[in-house]
């Protein structure tokens, strides 16, 4: 009880802190730490077993449905934006861009990470292969939170900004899809204990069941509903879908994303649902981040620090070198400066969720190394994102100047 009391109290403090700090116009990393919610991750670490021991393993076990719900909610909200009508507004070359972007990250980061994990950390080649593949997927993820705030604050509403916002918000799709393949076909995690065909049926089940749930959800929400009833159905379905994933021993991110995609294409209530999702995501993310922080037992040795540094450096180089080349290769209707790639730097909530999903699936005891590399990278990238993304947006002024608002 003491633990839960402290938990509630800290949420309250963090919440009030975020209320006051995010009101400032100044673009400081501290303000952004509240915007992206990473402060709650740090709070979770403080409350966790390694520091204050308030959120003990026993309390965390009791709060596990909230963790699963939080992970599922991220997947659902992410999937919900894939409404056919919205996606069709953008030319195919933009989708190809996001896929090629993902592919380049997959190859470059997984190659480097494999070498670093085997040479510096001393992992076996099978372990290093899965770790580096998962890490490459993680580095390919993008989050629009920081970009949104920057674009709002510097008041850039041109088409390229809108386009960058679109690409940043959909690119993670490939990473989550990659996670599904990693779960079912890599020699780690619980699903590996069963045969190839059984794993195949698991993959089919984790794709088919959300589709069924989405049609059930659609049936339930077809009639006239109050906002409260809609929220109840949303919570129930996401819980159910994430619970099915937990029951199958797979990360909830993939099936809930499928649920979100399927439902957004079945329903006609998007306009009512978007505000509801936006209102609900803040408390959901706060709780999720605190729980993730408490689950994490940070480990940082010299070699691990070097691995993180090199991976971040490669991400920078790929972003600077890749984006403008890719845009000219795909014949985008306007030029992008090399710096504009840095708009894709932050992975925010999606990065944290992805890392935790992988770790829960691998089993926490074996994956604390991955969790440390993943979360430290996400925190570092998100911490520097405000400056970097702002510079990238401002640098592009001369490129966008001629387009006007």
């Amino acid at each position, binding site marked *: *009880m*003491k633990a*839960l*009391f402290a938990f*509630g*109290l800290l*949420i*309250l403090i963090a*919440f009030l802190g975020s*209320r006051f700090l995010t009101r400032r116009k100044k673009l400081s990393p501290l303000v952004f730490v509240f915007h992206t919610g990473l402060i709650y991750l740090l709070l979770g670490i403080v409350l966790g077993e390694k520091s204050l021991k308030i959120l003990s393993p026993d309390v965390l076990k*009791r*709060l*596990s*449905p909230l963790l*699963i*719900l939080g992970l*599922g909610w991220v997947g659902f909200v992410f999937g919900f934006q894939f409404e056919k009508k919205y996606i069709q507004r953008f030319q195919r070359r933009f989708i190809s861009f996001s896929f090629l972007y993902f592919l380049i990250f997959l190859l470059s980061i997984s190659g480097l990470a494999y070498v670093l994990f085997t040479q510096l950390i001393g992992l076996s080649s099978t372990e290093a292969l899965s770790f580096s593949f998962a890490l490459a997927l993680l580095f390919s993820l993008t989050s629009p939170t920081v970009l949104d705030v920057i674009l709002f604050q510097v008041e850039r509403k041109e088409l390229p900004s809108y386009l960058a916002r679109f690409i940043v918000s959909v690119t993670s799709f490939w990473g989550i899809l990659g996670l599904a393949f990693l779960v079912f076909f890599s020699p780690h995690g*619980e699903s590996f*204990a*069963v045969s190839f065909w*059984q794993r195949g*049926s*698991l993959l089919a*089940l984790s794709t088919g069941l959300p589709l069924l749930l989405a049609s*059930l959800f659609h*049936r*339930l929400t077809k009639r006239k509903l109050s*906002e*409260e*009833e809609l*929220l*109840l*159905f949303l*919570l*129930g*379905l*996401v*819980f*159910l*879908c*994430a*619970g*099915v994933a*937990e*029951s*199958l*021993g797979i990360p909830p991110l993939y099936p809930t994303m499928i649920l979100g995609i399927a439902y957004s294409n079945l329903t006609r209530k998007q306009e009512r649902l978007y505000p509801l999702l936006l*209102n609900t995501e*803040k*408390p959901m993310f*706060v709780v999720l981040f605190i729980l993730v922080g408490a689950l994490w037992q940070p480990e940082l040795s010299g070699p691990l620090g070097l691995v993180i540094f090199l991976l971040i450096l490669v991400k920078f180089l790929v972003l600077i070198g890749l984006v403008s080349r890719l845009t000219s290769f795909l014949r985008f209707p306007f030029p992008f400066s090399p710096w504009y790639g840095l708009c894709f730097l932050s992975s925010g909530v999606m990065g944290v969720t992805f890392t935790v999903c992988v770790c829960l699936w691998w089993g926490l005891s074996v994956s604390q190394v991955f969790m440390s590399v993943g979360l430290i990278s996400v925190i570092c990238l998100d911490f520097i994102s405000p400056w970097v993304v702002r510079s990238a947006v401002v640098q592009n002024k001369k490129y966008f100047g001629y387009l006007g608002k």
Partner: protein
Amino acid sequence: MIELIILLAGMILWRMEIIQAYIGTQPSLALSFGFILLFAFLFGQRISRYKLPQITGFILAGILGGPYLLGFLSHADVQTLQIFDGLALSLIALIAGGEMRISRLREQLKAIFNLVLWQTVFIIGGFILIGFLLPLRVFQEQIGYFAPLPFFLMLGTLATATSPSTTIAVITETRAKGRLTDLILGTAVVKDFVVILLFAFSLSLVKSWVAGAGGGPGLDWKVIFRILEEVGGSLLLGVVIGGGLVLYLKYIQREVTVFILSIAFFSYEISHSLGFHPLLICLLAGFIVENYSPYGTNLIKAIEKVALPIFVIFFAISGASLDMGALRKSWLLALAIVLVRGGLKFLGTFSGAKLSQADRGVSRWGWAGFISQAGVTLGMAVIIEKEIPLWGAHLKALILAVIALNQIIGPILLQKLLVKSGEAGQKQL
């Protein structure tokens, strides 16, 4: 209906051994939670088509999916999910406080006082009388050895209680507003605290009686002072939280729902750790916001945004935790107690209403608003089991069975009463 069947069939299929063995599933609390949330809500909606309160549907769904029947929720799941009890109780109390206007309560003060007094006198007195008059040997096998007076004093005290949370939930669901609604709500809340105080007195009396030390009954003043301290502390904390809420609603105004959820969680946990009464704290906090600031409506609106899922899970879990084993074992005796309690409630309400010159409807049908029983009674039964080992466990088993019956019929009777009085649906959306 089809959705309900799909959900139920899907869950049964998912839990089939052959499927579990093939795909290698493991228990998931999130899955059980999602299922019970949807199942209870759909069941409640279905039930409401037969003009029954949704809350009864939530409770019945909890019983059906709980550990005693279909087993979708295990005992451990129920225990873990009771983490939402505190949150729900606090929100319910905030709503109740936010619905109470001093001006309306002042008019009803005399009636509330009389109803509480005469219900208490009739029920406790009635049960003690029954203890002396009835040939109780018939029930000895079920409730073990007991001395009639202490046993029936405790039974009568527990029977006096009404569940304010269920009362508030039915009033919220039926959107009832009016004199009778205020009277029932006010009486249920005031009686809750009278019962807590009475329970403390009765328990200390009975404990010394049963122990036989000193040759006769006596009062444990330490216990009495502790109770008074708890009530005083709760009132103080309620004022502080109410003041905090007013300040937040006045100066910050953003993300009110999230803030209230945090406050509800926080106040429940702090009250738990200090031994205070969360219901009293939040009731007073809501009361202060409603009566000493212009933000009462904002408070209620913000809570109502998130209240539904929390209420559904609260009542479904309370249904799942009802001890069907105890009910099966002693249903006949429990039914007899429920009927006697109902009769005594009628006499108490009738007398109280006549003395305070309340409407004819209150004296004839008001009793139907005070039948439901839940958390507080259960908590007191658990304390009796611990404090009076001689027959506490027997009394607890019996009380669990009585609660199960009262919690099923109580919301139905209250809803019928509110509809009959014409006050259901009077609250503006």
